[in-house]
């Protein structure tokens, strides 16, 4: 049970703060990150009922200057960029030529010809290389991950708390953003998140991150770690890169084809079109355990006759259902008997039902 942490892990601007709060620290995506503070179930209640703050400074941020079409950016991501209004964001993916997912990301349109990309921590370097390789020559690409701190303020009370810091916060609709002056610094604030609750992501200078964190904690915002972040996103059925998404999994298999613009040319389109016509090998399913036992990543999914039909990609205990929940990949044409499967190792697998996510439907996301 002892976890030793390698010293070559990257640290967010809040590393000392997390230690002072006695957070349990874990390696994640090459970073040393807080797993939990008060405990996952307590932090769950803070986020679903009140408001919590997550240090997500590990995530990668890129700036790109150029026209979506002529810069090549439009061909790098699956979501349609050209029609996006300025000050909005869109979720999508970057694929390889085979249609496998290199990363999922949000693209914000800063100006007519300026783009802000938010990518996963563990893939920041490979994403930067991939994007630069495919951008037209002369296009300005900047990896500003090391200058950019990021705090996610999430929960039904998020807007009320932030109003004291940002009086214009009510102007922000879901998946829009604006620049505000926070604590004397220019900050980008987007109404986005990964929890299913009303929430904001605050992008601020690296050096200001601690001051903002302390302001939030002084205003009754509770710190929450990666542990509960995973529970919250799984209750919403959101994909996590490295689990539901990988270079070996296509957006079609992951159930994310709604984030693909088929009318434009993009890397991987040919492979994905073929897969769309012939059906992918696998499909994504949601799982609700028939007990408090949780599906776990790597569990085999069996049909009721004991035949292996797939694999669990993520799992956790769901505090809202008081049952285990999970996501998995099964053979595309698998037809479950009575909507049921069994999960686990080969001995004594446990029963689960196939349920379409989200598992949690009371979220304040769009309120």
């Amino acid at each position, binding site marked *: *049970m*002892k976890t030793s942490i390698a010293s070559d892990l990257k640290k967010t601007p809040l590393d000392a703060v997390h230690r002072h709060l006695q957070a*349990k620290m874990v390696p994640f995506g090459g970073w040393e990150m807080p*797993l*939990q503070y008060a*405990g*996952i*179930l307590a932090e769950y209640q803070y986020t679903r009922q009140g408001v919590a703050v997550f240090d997500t400074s590990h995530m990668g941020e890129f700036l790109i200057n150029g026209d979506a079409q002529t810069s090549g950016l439009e061909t790098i991501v699956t979501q349609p960029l050209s029609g996006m209004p300025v000050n909005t964001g869109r979720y999508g993916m970057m694929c390889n030529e085979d249609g496998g997912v290199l990363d999922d990301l949000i693209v914000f349109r800063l100006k007519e010809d300026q783009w802000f990309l938010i990518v996963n921590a563990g893939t920041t370097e490979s994403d930067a290389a991939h994007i630069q390789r495919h951008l037209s020559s002369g296009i300005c690409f900047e990896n500003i991950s090391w200058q950019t701190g990021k705090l996610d303020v999430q929960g039904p009370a998020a807007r009320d708390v932030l109003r004291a810091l940002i009086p214009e916060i009510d102007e922000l609709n879901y998946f829009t953003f604006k620049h505000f002056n926070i604590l004397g610094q220019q900050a980008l604030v987007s109404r986005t998140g990964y929890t299913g609750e009303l929430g904001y992501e605050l992008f601020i200078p690296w050096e200001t991150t601690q001051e903002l964190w302390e302001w939030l904690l002084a205003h009754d915002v509770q710190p929450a770690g990666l*542990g509960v972040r*995973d*529970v919250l996103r799984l209750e919403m059925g959101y994909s996590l890169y490295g689990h539901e998404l990988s270079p070996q999994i296509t957006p079609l298999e992951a159930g994310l084809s709604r984030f693909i613009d088929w009318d434009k040319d993009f890397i991987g389109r040919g492979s994905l079109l073929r897969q769309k016509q012939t059906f992918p090998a696998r499909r994504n399913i949601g799982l609700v355990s028939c*007990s*408090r*036992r*949780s599906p*776990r990543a790597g569990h085999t999914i069996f049909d009721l006759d004991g035949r292996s039909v797939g694999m669990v990609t993520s799992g*956790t*205990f769901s505090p809202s259902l008081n049952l*285990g929940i999970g996501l998995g990949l099964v053979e595309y044409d698998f037809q479950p008997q009575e909507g049921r499967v069994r999960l686990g190792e080969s001995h004594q697998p446990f029963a689960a039902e196939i349920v379409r996510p989200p598992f949690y439907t009371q979220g304040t996301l769009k309120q």
Partner: protein
Amino acid sequence: MEIYDHYHFTKEHEWINLEDGFGTIGITDYAQSSLGDITFVELPGIGNEVEQFEQLASVESVKAASDIFSPMSGKVTEVNSELESNPGLINKDCFEKGWLVKIEISDPQELSNLMTGDEYHSYLKSLDS
């Protein structure tokens, strides 16, 4: 960290409390704290025979599942069925109300393979360093 001096302990952080040939088994404060919020407990059937240091039960926290090994050999005589609906009892009171299983001890000599309270306390200190 609280240590129940008269209990005996395993390196895997289980405890056993012996009384009149029976042993009550649970996990230590170190174990419950490492696991975090416990959400599910799988307990053995009454009458099951178990060998020392073999799997006896399993507990799940929000994040992970862990096997619990029996500190001694014996036959299961009782399980803490309250844990089925309230597994968090282990987090709240791991040395008393959060016990897992009672067994009838089959070989008292096995006690020499376990740590006393003092020894376990030293063992915990060695893990911290």
